[in-house]
């Protein structure tokens, strides 16, 4: 080519100039663990299923959710949603209403009749599950999905365990419970009700089971020594709640004293209130020290339940009890004050916690029981006896439905590995996406959608569900409040803000890729990523 005077080079594009060589640190995409997922006792991928819900794809969202927890509609009602306390959005305005979206998806699944597919391949292994409560049915679901033949045996007349006999209808309508239980049975799980297992080893042998998961729960009400006359009516909370399920409602009289400060005490008080009685809770410590969740105490108070804080029952007599006032000492323990008071009481309901009926474990070699009367298990939830696993309320853990469901999943994974002669190794956890990793500027302002509450009069007199659900547009709005912490949601910010066009957009669902030939390592993509899904790493120089 003939070049003009003093020109020696051909013209060309600056693409020949690889500015990536300037870089001392490189941006790298990563997935961080959203705090909600990190918090969830059932190990749900909350951010993951909200991602589908955000685009209105509710079935995909429900299917993603139920990979970890088959009971979306139950969870959306009874889970204490500690995920919401961990939610990063709480630092911007209010936490995302994860629980209300979960309920919407669960209800949608029931309404539309979404089912779980039976496994494609049968493993040929047989697993016995004792207890058709949240833990047992969760394990049944996961084991069945993995292709095992599952039999669930339960002493009671219905599936659901404590979700039926411990949680009042006004918190969990029975048609919701039934639908989610039946959906598991429909996967080809054999459920044998009214079938108490008296001896686990015999049962496994006669049924030729390869492994067992025990989840019998804790339903023997703890007693307290209360001096009482013959005429005093003292019953335990779990029997009261159980009898609510039957035709014969418990006869407790007008003035019902509930002794205890846990969620069960609140459930009993609110239930008897609905039957027309006047419940009064007696608890030895203060409200902030009570084990019941504060919102439940608040709802009970709204409904007219009376509470005597800092009080113990000294004596129960005919239609009256004597209580002693307590005072907290320096360490926060209640101490008697010698001040007494008399209360009218037709009956006393003891809600002091529950013990586990360990009868079926008699004579199992290697099995150990802790001093609290629960079964010792390893991190894999296997008891001291190989092949027998346990979970839910009968092992040392916090006692609630979500924890129990989580145990079911964890046990299923470990049983599955054990059946193949392997050890289940959970995948390594990603680092948690802390609020400081986010750039909250990019999120639109949007306060939380509040779920409707039932009218107070109907809350005091009927067992109708107290908390309503969100409708479709509300649920979609709520899902879209998710910040997608630590996980790319394809907002195109990195692709847009790079001054060097060094981000390659791969198309919907495929995310992005860095072009390190041109990336100068300015870090703008990291600073402007709303959800903290990029980090800088030093280059080896």
């Amino acid at each position, binding site marked *: 080519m003939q070049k003009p005077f003093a020109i020696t080079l051909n*013209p060309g*594009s600056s*693409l020949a100039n690889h500015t990536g060589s300037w870089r001392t640190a490189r941006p790298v995409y990563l997935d961080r663990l959203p705090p909600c997922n990190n918090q969830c006792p059932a190990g749900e991928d909350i951010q993951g299923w909200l991602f589908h819900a955000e685009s209105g794809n509710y079935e995909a969202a429900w299917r993603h959710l139920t990979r970890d927890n088959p009971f979306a509609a139950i969870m959306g009602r009874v889970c204490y949603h500690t995920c919401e306390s961990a939610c990063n959005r709480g630092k911007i305005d209010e936490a995302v209403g994860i629980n209300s979206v979960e309920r919407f998806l669960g209800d949608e699944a029931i309404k539309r009749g979404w089912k779980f597919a039976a496994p494609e391949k049968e493993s040929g292994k047989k697993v016995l599950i004792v207890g058709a409560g949240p833990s047992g049915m969760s394990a049944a679901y996961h084991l069945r999905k993995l292709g095992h033949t599952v039999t669930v045996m339960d002493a009671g007349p219905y599936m659901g365990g404590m979700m039926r006999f411990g949680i009042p209808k006004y918190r969990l309508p029975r048609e919701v419970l039934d639908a989610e239980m039946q959906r598991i049975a429909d996967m080809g799980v054999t459920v044998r009700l009214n079938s108490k297992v008296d001896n686990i080893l015999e049962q496994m042998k006669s049924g030729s089971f390869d492994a067992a998961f025990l989840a019998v729960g804790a339903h023997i009400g703890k007693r307290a020594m209360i001096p009482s006359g013959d005429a005093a009516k003292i019953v335990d909370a779990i029997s009261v709640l159980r009898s609510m399920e039957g035709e014969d409602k418990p006869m407790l009289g007008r003035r019902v004293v509930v002794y205890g400060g846990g969620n069960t005490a609140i459930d009993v008080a609110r239930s008897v209130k609905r039957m027309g009685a006047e419940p009064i809770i007696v608890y030895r410590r203060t409200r902030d020290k009570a084990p019941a969740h504060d919102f439940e105490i608040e709802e009970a108070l709204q409904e007219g339940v009376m509470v005597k804080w800092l009080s113990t029952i000294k004596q129960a007599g005919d239609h009256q009890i004597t209580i002693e006032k307590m005072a907290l000492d320096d360490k926060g323990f209640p101490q008697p004050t010698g001040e007494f008071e008399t209360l009218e009481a037709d009956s006393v309901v003891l809600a002091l916690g529950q013990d586990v009926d360990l009868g079926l474990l008699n004579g199992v070699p290697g099995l150990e029981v802790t001093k609290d009367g629960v079964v010792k298990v390893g991190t894999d939830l296997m008891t001291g006896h190989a092949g027998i696993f346990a979970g839910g309320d009968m092992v040392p853990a916090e006692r609630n439905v979500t924890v129990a469901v989580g145990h079911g999943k964890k046990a299923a994974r470990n049983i599955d590995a054990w059946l193949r002669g392997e050890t289940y190794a959970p995948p390594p956890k990603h680092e948690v996406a802390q609020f400081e990793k986010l750039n909250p500027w990019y999120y*639109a302002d949007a306060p939380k959608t509040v779920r409707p509450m039932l009218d107070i009069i109907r809350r005091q007199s009927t067992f109708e569900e107290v908390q309503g659900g969100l409708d479709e547009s509300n649920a*979609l709005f709520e899902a*879209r409040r998710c910040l997608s912490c630590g996980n790319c949601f*394809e907002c195109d910010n990195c692709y847009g803000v790079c001054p060097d066009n060094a981000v390659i957009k791969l198309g919907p669902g495929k995310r992005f890729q860095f072009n390190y030939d041109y990336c100068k390592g300015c870090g703008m993509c990291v600073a402007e990523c709303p959800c903290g899904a990029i980090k800088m790493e030093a280059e080896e120089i």
Partner: protein
Amino acid sequence: MSALQTVKFYQTGTFTVGNRLLAPEERSVQANMQRTNSLNSGHRACQGCGEALGARYAIDAAMNATNRQLIAANATGCLEVFSTPYPETSWQIPWIHSLFGNTAAVATGIAAAIKVKKQKGQGQDVCVVAQGGDGGTTDIGFGCLSGMFERNDDVLYICYDNGGYMNTGVQRSSATPSAARTATTMPLGPEPGNPFGQGKFVPAIAMAHEIPYVATATVADLRDLENKVTKAMSLRGARYIHILVPCPLGWGTASHDTIRMARLAKETGIFPVFEAEHGELKSALAIRRPLPVEEYLRPQKRFAHLFGKNPAVETIARIQAQADKNIRRYGLLSKEAA
């Protein structure tokens, strides 16, 4: 999907570059996989250059709005130097390098030539953009620019304002903010840094020419910037867009903070973002999270002398007064402004 039409909340709204929840036609030009990349990779701008970013945002939007029928004239300055070191070019559009001071005149000439060719039945409708930094616009090229305005020549002039002659070693321009340190306004003496009461705000001067369209923008509000360029390209006559483009080198900020600095300039009221037609203010981009100017000044080394052991409280108050005046003058806090 009906759901997407009924719910008017899209997680990040239009704050982010794209948004998978929006229909493709509602997304930004920059979110498009087929965007022009008018200013391509391999250019020699510093890490985190606001001007490189602003130029791609603006010219990609102009290309999109004109169906890629666009010619640009470019004044001497950073943008020209880093994009076209001989024999390479980063530009993927027809691009002409003018002198430092005459880019408005060169663009006028191109527009005139296109007009004549069309009259002769040759060629087609091609739009003309002139672009330069604040030195080439507010100082050296100001005479040509004012002439282009008063003749109402059919050109969109885009000024990328980084507040100084950064390419030649950070000297003061008439767009350098008060109190800022530059190589020629050292932080010495009783009034350290760039003196108060000097300099000019060219968008206001452009408005005084009563040209069809004047707007300001920053690299922190992409959708706003793209909307303004698109609107400007839909109009004829002299148009002017002034874009704030932070300069990590000249401002002494971290390279990853470029967009954050532009955002702080807008949120503190230091840089008013508005649009005007025929000399009248039409709308302003409202401040979303009001902040004191200190938040904007403190991260910048060019204002470091205002802080330290004995903060220059009075100087900071004078800068705050400038921001407050902008807020009043352009209605930056009123809801209607948004």
